[in-house]
């Protein structure tokens, strides 16, 4: 099991946001967390990557408890987040943004990437090229400031930045939010491609139908709890899920 979340409870100050949820992600999967606004799916993602501290429960990444880890400590372990709203570094160029994605490489003498891939040295340019293969448009725009990109291109940049170190588990928070419809398709195709290249994916998505079409498994959130969990295919066919969460009658 790559990621295992056991009885996770999260509060915002005194407000209960997540009530005793458990979920798992196995290596190679695409897992989608769907549900209405405020159901807690984003909260779950933020707790997993260390942006929020859980009140109780356990988060295990490759069997190791990561409850008390900060996001920057998890990057070295191979867990990267693409935050909601993309959050690229707007005043920096596209290539500088990607460079920041590889910040942890050789920042200490025990670079995580070196340990993981057993490579003597990792050239940043080599990592950049890999991302440019996936997102050729970023190569064209590499000298531009990130603020000048369209929101779709910014999403690619945010994903590319998280992919620089080839994480084991990529967390995506609302990857299609605010994108034009044709970019939504592109982004999901990219996610599929990243998964095929060997990265496990856990994503939160408003666009529930789209997410389930691409995912292997899904968790349906409702007011801080998990209402359904099943193979994505089964969820798409489940009458109750269709009626309550996919807006069908």
């Amino acid at each position: 099991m790559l990621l295992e979340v056991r009885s996770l409870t999260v509060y915002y100050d005194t407000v209960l946001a997540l009530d005793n949820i458990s979920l798992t992600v196995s290596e190679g999967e695409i897992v989608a967390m769907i549900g209405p606004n405020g159901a807690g799916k984003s909260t779950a993602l933020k707790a997993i990557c260390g942006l929020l501290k859980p009140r109780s429960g356990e988060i295990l990444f490759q069997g190791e408890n990561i409850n008390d880890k900060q996001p920057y400590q998890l990057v070295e372990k191979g867990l990267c987040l693409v935050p909601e709203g993309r959050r690229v570094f707007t005043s920096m160029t596209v290539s500088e943004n990607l460079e920041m994605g590889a910040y942890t490489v050789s920042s200490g003498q025990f670079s995580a990437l070196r340990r993981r891939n057993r490579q003597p040295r990792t050239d940043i340019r080599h990592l950049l090229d890999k991302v440019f293969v996936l997102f050729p448009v970023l190569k064209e725009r590499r000298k531009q400031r990130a603020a000048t990109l369209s929101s779709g291109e910014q999403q690619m940049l945010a994903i590319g930045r998280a992919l620089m170190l080839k994480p084991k588990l990529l967390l995506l928070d609302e990857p299609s939010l605010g994108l034009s419809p044709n970019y939504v398709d592109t982004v999901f195709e990219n996610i599929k491609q990243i998964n095929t290249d060997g990265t496990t994916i856990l994503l939160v998505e408003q666009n529930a139908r789209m997410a389930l079409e691409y995912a292997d498994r899904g968790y349906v959130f409702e007011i801080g709890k998990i209402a359904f969990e099943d193979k994505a295919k089964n969820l798409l066919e489940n009458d109750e899920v269709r009626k309550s969460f996919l807006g069908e009658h």
Partner: protein
Amino acid sequence: MLPQLILNGIIAGSIYAVIAIGFTVIYRTVKFFHFAHGVVYTIGAYFAYTLIISLHFNLILSFFLSIVLAALLGIAIDRSVYYPLRQQNASNLIFLLASFGVFIFLQNLIQLIYGAQILTIRTGPIKEGHHFYGAVITDIQILILVVSIILMIFLWLFIQKTKLGKAMRAVADDPVAANVVGINPERIIRTSFAIGSALAGAAGILISFETNIEPTMGFSALLKGIIASIIGGIGSIPGAVLGGFFLGLAENLGIWKISAGWKDCIAFLILIIFLLIRPWGFLGTKTEKETI
């Protein structure tokens, strides 16, 4: 008269600019006004005084040693006061008040140790300055100008080219995004306080070669640094440089026709004019919503 005023303006401006870029480096990372920056400037001058006059160190060694001590002081202020507040998620207002507290505490500490009287670092006989296009410039003033410009260039190269400098820009842009790409925020905060305080200290040391020093010298320097940062565009390093020189020139040219006692008044008038018609300054971003 005019060439001399312009020259004085440039020299004053270079000191303001160094204070302002130090202030800006810290502001960009922590997003609150670190008022204790002014007292770090004062202590920089007193470090230099102690090393040169009391311990008879040589000038260049004292300069570098004082800068290092100022940087360490900056880190110590952050570690002992701001860090515990960060752990408690304190609001910006709390940080602002705390930084005032640090300012007053350290200013009084200097007074306790050195006394309230004026001190002077005079390292040689007073020499006549060089004549330069109808103005007179002393060796010390040339030193101030050259060192200030070198510091600005060094800072710019550091921020633009080095990995740590780029990480500082990333944190300035978006601290959460910086955290999720693997940048340890505490490390960047520490670096920012070290660099910003080193710059404040350097400005204090440079000015101590030129004028007398006293425990309360930091307050007006701090205000000039803040005004320079605001009119340059808060958070912008080139803006802080531009704001510093603009302020120095405006103050000195302003007293061409009126009494020199109005200098500070001119600085605040400029601040008020900017806040009314162009609050984002020369190079700041208009859309950005800034909080003190």
